[in-house]
C-alpha cells in the first residue's frame, strides 16, 4: 500500500479521535501491482472499518480533508447489515464500512454533511429498511407503489418475485415541494416524455417562464437489477451489467468485470486490456457525437444535429463491422474480451478516425461562428464549481465546472497506465462548456485509440476463470463516458454473485440538474437536461 499520501495524516487524526481504524485491503486475493504487471488501481483502494456511532462523525472529518463522497450501498448478511460508503481524494479510494444489527437498523446520516449522499441513503432506506438518523429529506425515493412501505426488496427474506399487485397503482401522493404566491404555478412533466427518451418525472415551480424550482422524481425504470444479480454466474452478471444503461454498456460491463476479476485474483491478458480501452473510447466518442447533435437540436439548430447524427451513424456502422455490435454490447466478458482486432480492422479504424477529425474540423468552425447558437448556450444552465464539488458531480458535467478528476488519469487501470493523455477541462460551467468539453474529450479519445492500437501485440484475449472463495469481494472503478463508475461485487460459494452494486455517474449528476436549471426559463430546460444527459435506467437500477 502506497504510504506517503494524505491517508497517513488523516488516519492519525481519526485514530487520535478514538476511531481505531486498521487499514486493510478490500480484496486480499487481488493481483498486487508489480513493476511490469498486475493492476495499478488495486493499490489505491483501502478498506477502513469503523463503529456505526462514528458514521456521521467520520464524514465530518472527511469533508474537512476535502474527500469526495463517491458511493454508498448496503448488504444483508444474516443478523447484520453491512453498510458501505466510498470516499476519494487524489485518486485514492477509502471504502468505509460498518455493521449494524438488523433488529434496530439505524445509522447517523452522512447526507447532512455530504449532499451527494442524499439520494443514495434514501435508496438504501427504501430497499433495506435502514433509517438514517438526521437525514435532511427522508422521503421515499426508489420506492413508488410496487412494494409496501414495510417490505424491503434487498433483504434476504424478500423473494425475487415479491408480492406485486395485478396492476401497480401510480405513485399519487409523493410530497413534492410546494410554493405559494401570486403567479406561482406548477408544471408536471412525465413520466412519459414527449421525445424518444427514458421516463421520469420533473416538477417545475415557475413564475411566468422563470424556473423557481425543479424537483426530479425518478425511479420509474427500477428493474430490481441489484436483486436479480444475486445468484448469477460471472458471465451472466456481465450480460446484466451491460444492460444497466444501454449507452454505457462498455463502461458498466468493464466495471463489473474488473470487480469480478479483482475478487477472483485474475489478471487479463495485455491484448484484452488494450481492446477494452479501444471499446471504451469508441463508446465515449459515439455518445459525445450523439449528445453534441442533440444539444444543438434542442435550440433548433438542425444543421448540427444532422451532421452529428450522420457522423455517429458512420461510427456505429464501424462498431458493427469490426466488433460485431452497433452499441458494443457483450464485447467485454469476465477474463477478457469476446472480440479481436485484425490488422485490416486497425487500418480501417485509423482511417476512420482521420476522416472524423477532418469532418469535425469543418463542422466545428461553422458551429463556433454561429451567433444564434452562442446566444442560447453561453451562460445558460450555469453550474458553479462549488455546487459541482458539493454534489460530487462527475465526468464531463464536473469537468465543465472545473472539477479536475478522471479515473483514467488519477486511479489508472490497465491499459490507461500505459498511455499519456490530457484531461479536458472547462471552468465556465454553462451549457457551452459542457458542449466544448465533449469535443475535447472526443479528440483525447481519438489519440488514446491511436496509442492503444500502436501497442497491440499478439496474445490471448481471455484469461482462464478461477472460482473465487466464498466472500471474495472487490471494487471495480472505471471512467465510463459519463464519468466514474464504481461497482461493488461480492461472491458467494460456487462462483455465484452474492451482492452487486453498480454506481452509475448519473446518480451523482442528476441532483446537479436541479441546481443548474434554477433561474433559467422553462423553454431552456430540454437543452439544460441534454447538456447533462443523465441516465434514468442507470439511476433507478
Amino acid at each position, binding site marked *: 500500500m502506497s504510504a506517503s499520501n494524505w491517508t497517513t495524516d488523516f488516519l492519525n487524526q481519526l485514530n487520535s479521535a478514538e476511531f481505531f481504524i486498521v487499514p486493510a485491503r478490500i480484496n486480499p486475493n487481488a493481483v498486487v501491482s508489480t513493476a511490469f504487471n498486475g493492476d495499478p488501481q488495486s493499490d489505491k483502494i483501502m478498506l477502513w472499518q469503523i463503529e456505526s456511532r462514528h458514521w456521521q462523525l467520520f464524514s465530518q472529518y472527511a469533508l474537512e480533508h476535502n474527500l469526495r463522497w463517491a458511493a454508498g450501498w448496503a448488504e444483508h448478511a444474516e443478523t447484520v447489515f453491512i453498510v458501505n460508503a466510498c470516499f476519494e481524494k487524489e485518486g485514492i479510494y477509502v471504502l468505509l464500512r460498518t455493521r449494524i444489527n438488523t433488529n434496530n437498523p439505524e445509522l447517523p446520516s452522512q447526507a447532512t454533511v455530504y449532499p451527494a449522499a442524499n439520494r443514495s441513503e434514501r435508496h438504501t432506506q427504501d430497499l433495506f429498511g435502514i433509517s438514517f438518523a438526521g437525514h435532511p429529506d427522508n422521503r421515499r425515493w426508489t420506492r*413508488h*407503489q*410496487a*412494494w409496501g412501505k414495510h417490505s424491503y426488496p434487498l433483504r434476504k427474506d*424478500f423473494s*425475487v*418475485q*415479491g*408480492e*406485486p399487485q395485478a*396492476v*401497480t*397503482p*401510480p*405513485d399519487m401522493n409523493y410530497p413534492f415541494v410546494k410554493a405559494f404566491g401570486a403567479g406561482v404555478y406548477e408544471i408536471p412533466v412525465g*413520466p*412519459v416524455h*414527449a421525445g*424518444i*427518451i*427514458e*421516463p421520469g418525472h420533473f416538477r417545475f415551480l415557475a413564475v411566468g417562464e422563470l424556473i423557481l424550482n425543479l424537483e426530479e422524481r425518478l425511479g*420509474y*425504470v*427500477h*428493474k*430490481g*437489477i441489484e*436483486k*436479480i444479480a444475486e445468484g448469477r454466474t460471472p458471465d451472466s452478471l456481465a*450480460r*446484466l451489467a451491460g*444492460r*444497466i*444503461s*444501454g*449507452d454505457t*454498456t462498455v463502461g458498466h460491463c468493464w466495471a463489473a468485470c474488473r470487480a469480478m476479476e479483482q475478487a477472483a485474483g485474475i489478471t487479463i491478458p495485455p491484448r484484452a486490456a488494450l481492446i477494452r480501452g479501444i471499446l471504451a473510447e469508441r463508446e465515449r466518442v459515439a455518445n459525445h457525437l*450523439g449528445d453534441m447533435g442533440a444539444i444543438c437540436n434542442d435550440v433548433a439548430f438542425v*444543421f448540427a444535429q*444532422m*451532421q452529428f*447524427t*450522420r457522423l*455517429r*451513424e458512420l461510427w*456505429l456502422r464501424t462498431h458493427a463491422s469490426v466488433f460485431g455490435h*452497433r*452499441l458494443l*454490447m457483450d464485447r467485454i466478458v469476465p477474463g477478457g474480451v469476446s472480440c479481436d482486432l485484425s490488422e485490416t480492422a486497425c487500418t480501417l479504424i485509423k482511417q476512420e478516425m482521420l476522416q472524423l477529425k477532418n469532418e469535425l474540423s*469543418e*463542422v466545428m*468552425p*461553422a458551429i463556433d*461562428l*454561429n451567433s444564434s447558437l452562442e446566444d442560447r448556450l453561453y451562460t445558460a444552465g450555469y453550474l458553479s464549481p462549488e455546487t459541482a464539488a458539493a454534489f460530487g458531480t462527475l465526468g464531463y458535467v464536473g469537468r465543465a465546472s472545473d472539477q479536475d478528476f478522471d479515473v483514467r488519469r488519477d486511479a489508472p487501470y490497465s491499459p490507461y497506465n500505459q498511455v499519456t493523455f490530457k484531461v479536458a477541462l472547462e471552468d465556465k460551467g454553462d451549457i457551452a462548456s459542457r458542449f466544448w468539453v465533449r469535443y475535447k474529450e472526443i479528440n483525447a479519445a481519438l489519440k488514446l485509440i491511436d496509442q492503444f492500437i500502436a501497442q497491440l501485440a499478439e496474445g490471448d484475449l481471455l484469461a482462464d476463470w478461477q472460482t473465487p472463495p466464498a466472500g471474495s469481494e472487490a471494487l471495480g472503478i472505471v471512467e465510463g463516458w459519463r464519468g466514474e463508475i464504481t461497482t461493488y461485487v461480492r461472491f458467494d460459494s460456487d462462483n455465484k454473485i452474492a451482492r452487486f452494486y453498480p454506481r452509475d455517474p448519473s446518480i451523482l449528476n442528476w441532483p446537479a440538474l436541479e441546481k443548474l436549471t434554477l433561474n433559467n426559463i422553462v423553454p431552456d430546460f430540454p437543452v439544460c437536461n441534454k447538456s447533462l444527459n443523465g*441516465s*434514468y*435506467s442507470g439511476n*433507478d437500477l
Partner: protein
Amino acid sequence: MLRLFKKILTTGIVTEKYKAPKDDELEKLGIEIKRHIDKQFSGSIAIRQVDAGSCNGCELEIHALNNPYYDIERFGVHFVASPRHADVLLVTGPVSRHMQTALLRTYEATPNPKWVVAVGDCAACGGEFGVSYASCGAVSNVIPVDMTIEGCPPTPLALLKGLLGLINK
C-alpha cells in the same frame, strides 16, 4: 455562415446517394412501407414511442431512424409527442412495475384503430430482466401487442423491416 453552407453543400444528400447493396435493400423496404402506409393511413403513420423500462439501448436505435441515412420520415413515418396523435405505440423495455399504470394510460389515450409494437428482446419476452417484484416482463403482459421486433437492441434496419411486417398484416 458561408462555412455552414459550404458544409451542407459538400455533404450533399447522403440519404439518396447510398447505393451499397445493404442500403438498396433499405430503399426497397422503405418504398414497400410507403406503399402499405398509403393504403392504410393515407401516406402517414404517427408513432408514439414509450420507454416502459428499457436500458435506453432501444431508444438509441429508434433515434437512428431519424438520421439522414435512414430518414424514416420520407416514408411518411413520423414520431409524435402525444399518444393522442398516434396510430402506433412503439414500446420498449420490460415493463417496470413503476411504469405499468403510465403505460396503461398511454394505451388508453391512443385513439382507435391503434397498433402496439413491442421493440427489443426485453419488450418481446422480458429479456435479461424477466418478471420480478420490480418488472412485469414482456409488454404483452400489460397491454395487447400486435407485433414484436426482436434484437438487443434491434438495428435501425430491423426496425424498418418490422414496421413493414406490421403494415402487411
